[in-house]
């Protein structure tokens, strides 16, 4: 596919030119400006994101577009309150020429200011320079420039967003990332499902499969080059690999029964999944190079939805070996399985946070569905959202935000279904719909783009 090739080219075409503070010799100081992300409810920090200055030959669309995307990203995080550009007094050209007039920015009560300039280099590349300023200490906090092919400007906006987020919250960002999901349409009994991929803000959405085969539960490889998922190709439900660059699909292994619920190991060398035979589902790991398979559980119950810890040493999974669907944690070799959920109801979909400290899950209790988090030792269970049907959490690359899907009956007699993607802050605040071209389910967040 053309757009896929373009994507790879874009990745290579992206160059980091300067690091913090290199531009204009300004010394970034460790300013007071800081958002505390550990508290539940934060007062979003006022930030002014100026339109970027267009230097001669620079692209006006990019100069306008980057601040808009940065604004949308930061606003969506719930941690920032971008100011209305109509209130800005100083124009981009004068900022470029002589720097910010801080008194004018203080006058509109912003604490931080983002400025930038877009130019075109002799070889036709786009150069984007941006700076983050602390309006009260009148100091530059970041100054960076990026050179890229003009088509790749959205990605620059996400990288800039991540830089700002990181500098002000002290945590790494998550904006330069993608989400793979299942695009859905049609009536419940004949739902058409397709693999789809988009940027984390919903832009650049495209389908990867044509909908002829039922597909479910896509997950990224750590390097983002592959997706593992379940396909009903030839009415044989099996785990597949999809290569994003080439579009090639490949069945994984030759199993006598259905394979499902796949996920990559953190090093990308293995895929862990379930295989069902004679009605019994167990967890297996396949080495992708040798293609050797190792059985990790051997219970008479359902063992499925396995997920490695970020250090690769443990595996969380769900099992009904104790009578009902609950979450267990075992060593990566399958030894020492320990049940970690003991609350009322059923627990499934364990997903380990990239930080390692929490496991997100889906819980079912008294006709309601919940998304929650729990520590790997089973302590500190916290439910963060509840609905008729919410399911399938996936972590943002920094472990701060969860994406999941929400289903509800619609239409006459509840005969249709709506399925939408949502994001929510780990604290349970700031739930937002993530718009997809059609209905969406089974989202999986990528790591930060390489």
């Amino acid at each position, binding site marked *: 596919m053309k757009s896929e090739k373009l994507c790879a080219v874009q990745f290579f075409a992206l160059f980091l030119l300067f690091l913090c503070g290199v531009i204009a010799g300004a010394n970034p100081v460790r300013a007071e400006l800081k958002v505390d992300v550990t508290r539940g409810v934060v007062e979003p920090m006022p930030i002014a994101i100026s339109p970027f200055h267009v230097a001669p030959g620079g692209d006006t669309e990019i100069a306008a577009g980057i601040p808009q995307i940065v604004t949308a990203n930061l606003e969506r995080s719930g941690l920032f309150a971008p100011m209305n550009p109509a209130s800005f007094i100083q124009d981009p050209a004068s900022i470029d020429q002589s720097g910010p007039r801080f008194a004018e920015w203080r006058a509109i009560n912003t604490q931080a200011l983002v400025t930038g300039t877009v130019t075109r280099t002799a070889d036709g590349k786009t150069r984007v320079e941006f700076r983050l300023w602390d309006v009260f200490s009148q100091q530059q906090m970041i100054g960076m420039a990026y050179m890229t092919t003009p088509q790749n400007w959205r990605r620059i906006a996400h990288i800039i967003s991540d830089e700002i987020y990181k500098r002000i919250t002290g945590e790494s960002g998550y904006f330069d990332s993608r989400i793979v999901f299942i695009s859905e349409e049609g*009536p*419940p*009994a*004949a*739902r058409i*499902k397709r693999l789809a991929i988009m940027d984390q803000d919903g832009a650049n959405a495209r389908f990867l499969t044509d909908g002829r085969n*039922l597909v*479910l*539960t896509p997950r990224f490889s750590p390097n983002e080059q592959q997706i593992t998922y*379940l396909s009903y190709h030839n*009415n*044989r*439900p099996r785990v597949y690999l999809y290569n994003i660059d080439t579009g090639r699909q490949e069945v994984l292994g030759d199993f006598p*029964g*259905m394979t*499902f*619920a796949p996920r990559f190991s953190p090093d990308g060398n293995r895929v862990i999944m*379930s295989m*069902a035979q*004679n*009605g*019994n*589902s167990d967890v297996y790991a396949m080495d992708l190079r040798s293609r050797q398979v190792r059985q990790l559980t051997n219970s008479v119950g*359902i063992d*499925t*939805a396995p997920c490695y810890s970020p250090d690769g040493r443990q595996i969380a999974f*769900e099992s*009904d070996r104790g009578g*009902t*669907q609950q979450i267990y944690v075992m060593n990566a070799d399958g030894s020492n399985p320990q049940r970690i959920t003991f609350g009322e109801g*059923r627990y*499934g*979909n364990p997903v380990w946070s990239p930080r390692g400290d929490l496991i997100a899950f*889906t819980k*079912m209790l008294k*006709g309601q569905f919940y998304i929650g988090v729990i520590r790997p030792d089973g302590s500190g269970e916290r439910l963060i959202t509840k609905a008729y*049907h919410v*399911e*399938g959490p996936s972590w943002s690359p920094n472990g701060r935000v969860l994406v999941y899907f929400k*289903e509800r*009956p619609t239409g006459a*007699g*509840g*005969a*249709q*279904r709506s399925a939408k993607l949502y994001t929510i802050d780990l604290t349970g605040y700031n739930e937002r719909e993530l718009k997809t071209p059609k209905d969406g389910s*089974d989202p999986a967040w990528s790591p930060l783009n390489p």
Partner: protein
Amino acid sequence: MPVQLKSFRLLALMAVAALSLSLSACSSTPDDMGDVSAQSTMGAEDMGGPLYGTEVGADSTMGVAPGTQADLVANVGDRVFYGYDRYDLTNEARNTLDLQAQWLMKYPNVNVTIEGHCDERGTREYNLALGERRAAAVKSYLVARGIDPNRLTTISYGKERPAVPGADEASWAQNRRGVTKVD
């Protein structure tokens, strides 16, 4: 709802029994049977589902080709139902499967696929596993009744292919099912 369904099935069986009596009364050779079924194949394809038998009863000129999916649906029953998060077979399910086993004995060249389905009130992966269990429960029952396991394939659809779209217990009860389909 399941009660209602049961009475529908009873009605269907009675209708079918009446039809086969009338057919055997007027057709003495297998060839004649073939003719009857050839005429009605299209109708049989178009309909399906548990209510088909009553339709046949209403119009005695119609029939179904022996050994086909329509035959299974009309004369035997193609599906069994399960409780919430259950995969054990109810007495009603066993009765249906006894009939399916007899039917499969009668048509030894017919192979079938057993689909396991779930309602939507569970998580995706778990339901895939549960659907597999339900399909396997049907298969092992049929094997115990003497059917060659090589004639029986299983597939789980989890909660992906509900039979009815409603979002209430009556609908979910119909979606928690094992369906036998002629290959």
